[in-house]
């Protein structure tokens, strides 16, 4: 009995989170006419294949281009962003220099500023350099991640022993070499966590590309699907494409999570023990 109540709450929560995804999967598998007049949570004739081929063929396959853009923006920004965050957090944790705490506090306060609030000032800055509507206008602002710096510092403090660094220095290893060959390995679980957080944040960042980009070919998939969705009044055919597209667009996120999940759990756990 005692276990039943928590189980019920967990079960309800699980359903609450899974039903929209289930609905999306079911909806994307229907043809347009069946979408409106069949059971919303169960399959009708299976036409996911048709929907997919229609999606990929629509407007010369612009959807694939958007997926690719998203992967490049997100993967690139998450990789470089993780590296930057790791270096910064590591430096803040392991070196003593004047202004260290001030820098850390400023970075930390950056966590509090929502990305949405920064989008417009960023737009005005990029406009000054005539760099709006370019790949860089979305990519560069996505590189920084104050929360990643915070995580990296905490983790570096906890998991990279000063004695080890000392030993490396005695053996004649330079600071950079030490960082890449020893410290990053020790920090690896944290890096995976930072990478995942960063990946999801950039993948879902919508306002920045909305404000920066006008060229359809540069859109990430979120913005592309949104702009189709605003045209559903005019072209109701787009509704099925938006649904199918939404389903496809979560695939990379799922893959990233499945691949990195192992490290992630490990990272969160070992951080907690320390």
């Amino acid at each position, binding site marked *: 009995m005692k276990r039943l109540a928590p189980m019920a709450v967990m079960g309800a929560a699980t359903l609450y989170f899974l039903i929209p995804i289930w609905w999306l999967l079911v909806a994307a598998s229907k043809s347009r006419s069946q979408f409106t007049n069949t059971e919303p949570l169960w399959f009708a004739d299976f036409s996911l294949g048709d929907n997919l081929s229609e999606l990929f063929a629509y407007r010369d396959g612009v959807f694939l281009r958007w997926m690719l853009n998203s992967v490049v923006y997100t993967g690139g920004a998450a990789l470089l962003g993780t590296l930057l965050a790791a270096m910064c957090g590591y430096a803040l944790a392991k070196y003593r220099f004047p202004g260290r705490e001030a820098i850390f506090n400023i970075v930390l306060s950056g966590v509090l500023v929502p990305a949405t609030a920064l989008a417009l000032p960023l737009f*005005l800055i990029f*406009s000054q350099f005539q760099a709006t509507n370019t790949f860089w206008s979305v990519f560069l602002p996505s590189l920084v991640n104050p929360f990643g710096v915070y995580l990296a510092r905490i983790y570096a403090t906890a998991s990279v022993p000063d004695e080890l660094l000392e030993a490396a220095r005695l053996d004649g290893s330079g600071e950079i070499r030490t960082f890449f060959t020893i410290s990053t390995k020790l920090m690896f679980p944290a890096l995976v966590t930072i990478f995942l957080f960063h990946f999801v944040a950039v993948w879902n960042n919508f306002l920045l590309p909305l404000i920066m980009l*006008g060229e359809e070919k540069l859109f990430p998939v979120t913005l592309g699907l949104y702009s189709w969705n605003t045209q559903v*009044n*005019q072209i109701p055919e787009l509704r099925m494409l938006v649904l199918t597209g939404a389903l496809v667009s979560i695939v990379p996120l799922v893959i990233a999570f499945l691949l990195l999940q192992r490290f992630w759990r490990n990272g969160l756990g070992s951080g907690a023990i320390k």
Partner: protein
Amino acid sequence: MRAALGLVLVSALALGACSSGGDSTESSEQAAAGCAPSSGPVTLTYTTWIPGIENVVKLWNDKNPNIQVKVQTGPNGNGGTYANFFNQLKAGNAPDLGHIEYDALPSFRVQDGLTNLADCAEVTAAKDQFVDWTWGQVSFGEQNAVYGIPQDTGPMGLFYRKDLFEKNNIPVPTTWEEYAAAAEKVKAAGGYITNFSQSDISQFAGLSWQAGGRWFSNDGTKWTVNLQDENTTKVANYWQDLISKKLVSAVPPWTTEWDNAYNTGQAWTWVSAVWGANSIKSGAPDTSGKWAVAPMPQWTAGGTVAGNWGGSSTAVFKGSKHPYEAAKFALWLNTSEEALTALNKEAQLYPATKAGAKLPALSEGVEFYGGQKIYDVFATASTQVSPDFVWGPTMTSTYATASDGFKGVVSGTGTLLDALKTTQTKTIADLKAQSIPVAE
């Protein structure tokens, strides 16, 4: 800096060239300067969300190597593109041309974001090609003012289920009185006469427009807001009555439920714009062949007044370095038969020109509507739209407030008139907040 200097020189030269061409008064010199051809090839940027626009613009680019147009796209206006336009204007890098719906045009005018094309002789000469009321939409009744080239329109008509009306022996309503009477009969036959658009206020605006409601006016210095004038009140009370008697359904518009209501014969009519033909066709595919189109119901028997719902213009933004070329392209886009045909084919745009209504594509029978030549109805309606309806400069928030109120009415709190009253107060407050002068 050097480029800017060059530009000044070029326009000074152009000015000189024009004034030597015979214009003697100072004002026409300025006029020519405001719309002088650029020397050498130019590339224009054009932001729009018309689906398939690249194919239309390609027709132009292939024939005009010296005036190339680059298309940028994004979500629809209220979905974010208008906000982007304002940001770009602030940053000084707005595109040369933009797609702006009539109801949003005044906000750009008020923010001084548009180039007045009245300086362009070709533009003013084209006035008579456009359906009369559309020119009022882009000039706001000001003298020597053209703030956009009319692009498409949404003259309204009555879409109805011919088969169901015939089967149940209900005459097709020609007046609003008959429409209300038909609503009772339709309810008795197990359907709803229509779906009252609770969250998209544009339909209500179109109905008020038809009835003679005039929400905004502008005497050149001050705005007057009147969302509860006599005629709007009449329309509000009429629909309030149908809602209270539960004779209309109130499914949120543009949803699958909404489509479904039409697809399954729950809703029998839709008073909508010409583009609604495609909305029904693709939203209710099972009802193919069962629909027909009639003129929208009238307030006085035998009347010939139509409303309008939607429509947009192509505007040249302030700061465009090539207003002459931009205007030239916008005129081609919205008057030439090839462009209008392509726009209609790609995005079902209904042209704003008088000649456009006679496009071959718009004179054919439409299979979904039992072969009826439905566009003839809209071509007539288009000539029956009153030219003196003016949109306010803060329509986005006006719509939002009204929509909140209307949704309340549908769920049983307040009346449409209350909602309009709140909207009026809120709209005036918004105008004042933006330092736009209001007459009270």
